[in-house]
């Protein structure tokens, strides 16, 4: 019996062969077979991935917008109480565990003040009967709390990083030149400082992705969002190894894609990286 199942799963092959076969199938999009769900892992992943992308994508945009805005405000009011308060706030939020913040948010906004639904992606009972507008709103309604929670944490980290980057740039001489030309202060900040401080943020985007996707794991669990994160956690509890490993691999692939995009963006943004394609440079 055991020997039969071992042969079915290919576990009787030498370890190296198993590894290579795994990589080969992974490249083809086949991640094996899930113990728990009795389905091919790739099917399960394909179902869960879009849900995570929706959540993570929304949160990503929100967090970058909020984070950069906060950093700008802090730098414009550098040294004032506003700067310090915002700095303390971002420090505090940054230090919170995602799952705890999720639980607190859930408690506050779904139970104590019943503003948002308490988890899930759509209303489990009513959704199939809703008209298109209502259905869309239902989805959004369920998305808001987890996305905001995830975004809040990421925004704090981004704000901290971007503030540091802006302050580094703030010491740069070309800002002094701009002021000496009579450029108004708000333009100095937006047109000169930010353009240069945006470069590290693009790098940050690439570097922060792994942590971001890790954060989705907890948020999905707390808010019962059926994406890759919940999948991974449940699989771990059930010792469903193919699913766990597939999630890790998928996560890495997402990060790799994101980093690649970030690299491209960086080259576009920083003219120093574009190779001079013209004729011989004059001296």
């Amino acid at each position: 019996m055991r020997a039969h199942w071992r042969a079915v799963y290919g576990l009787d092959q030498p370890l190296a062969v198993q590894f290579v076969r795994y990589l080969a199938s992974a490249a083809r999009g086949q991640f094996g077979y899930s113990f728990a769900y009795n389905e091919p892992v790739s099917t399960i992943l394909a179902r869960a991935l879009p849900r995570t992308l929706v959540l993570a994508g929304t949160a990503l945009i929100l967090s970058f917008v909020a984070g950069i805005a906060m950093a700008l405000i802090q730098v414009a009011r550098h040294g004032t109480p506003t700067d310090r308060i915002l700095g303390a706030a971002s420090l505090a939020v940054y230090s919170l565990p995602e799952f705890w913040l999720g639980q607190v948010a859930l408690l506050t906004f779904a139970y104590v003040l019943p503003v948002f639904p308490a988890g899930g992606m759509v209303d489990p009972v009513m959704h199939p009967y809703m008209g298109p507008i209502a259905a869309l709103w239902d989805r959004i309604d369920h998305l808001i709390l987890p996305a905001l929670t995830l975004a809040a944490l990421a925004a704090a980290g981004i704000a901290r990083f971007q503030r540091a980057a802006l302050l580094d740039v703030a010491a740069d001489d070309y800002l002094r030149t701009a002021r000496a030309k009579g450029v108004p202060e708000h333009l100095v900040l937006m047109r000169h400082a930010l353009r240069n401080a945006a470069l590290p943020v693009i790098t940050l985007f690439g570097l922060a992705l792994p942590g971001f996707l890790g954060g989705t794991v907890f948020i999905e669990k707390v808010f019962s969002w059926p994406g890759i994160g919940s999948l991974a956690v449940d699989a771990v509890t059930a010792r469903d190894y193919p699913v766990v490993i597939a999630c890790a691999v998928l996560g890495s692939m997402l990060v790799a894609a994101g980093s690649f995009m970030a690299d491209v963006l960086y080259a576009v943004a920083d003219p120093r990286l574009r190779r001079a394609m013209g004729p011989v440079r004059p001296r």
Partner: protein
Amino acid sequence: MRRMRGSGDIAMLGWSLDAGPWPAIWRRFRRDRAAMAGLVVIAAIVVVTIGAPVIAPYPPNAILDMVALKNQGPSLAHPFGTDPASRDVLSRVLFGGRVSLAIAVLAMLTATTVGTMYGAISGYAGGKLDSVMMRITDACLSIPRILLLLTICALWGRPSLGSLVLILGLTSWFGVSRLVRGEIMGIRTREWVTAARALGATDARLLFRHLLPNIASPIIVATALGIGNVVLLEAGLSFLGVGVQPPFASWGNIMQDGADQVRALWWLSVFPGLAIVSAVIAINAVGDGLREAADPRR
């Protein structure tokens, strides 16, 4: 008479390095109120957790009364309530603190040691070895840490505390190695390095006695901030059930007991959570303060 460094009139405000960097760093750190507050909080938490055997009203795993005291909310006898196994949550939080903090510190120290060695060798050697080593690090860095840890812990079964330190430590060194490599590459072309080499210093001696001490501050800052991060990671893993295993208590796994009934058993989530939050905020405040003190921006 003290000589002012630097050319140009603005640079005449430059700091004097006569007394070495550390006294000035400490002086600046002292003036950062948030960082000092963080230091006080950490000290308090450390004292309280070390003194847990003395302070805690009950042993952390004592099952007090199977029926009557199960899942009780906070009360005078049990300020943090009791858990589903009728254990006093306050005591568990105190003892759990020792576990969580010890794991975090030890894991981060491991990570820093490994990462510094790796990064120093890579940065110093340069060339092909450096490229290969950094490719490996980058690949490791791009796996979302939680997923990596989940995979390892799932495959491991039930990790012991020591194993957990190893697991967390050996997955946290990638960032440090990148940092160290960058710093080493930044200073290995300086004149004084060439001078030392001309005086006959071997590579190893150069590395340990000259280069590493010079990049100590960013490494220390990264370690401090890293400890906070590991506390969060361990809490997360324990929360999901794959970190610290019973009978040991950690801040994370206390919260796990209340995870499914957040509303009903709120004290199981709130109090350990507050402990984690205050510890990590304090650690981050100190880390920030160190970074500002070591490299002040005007």
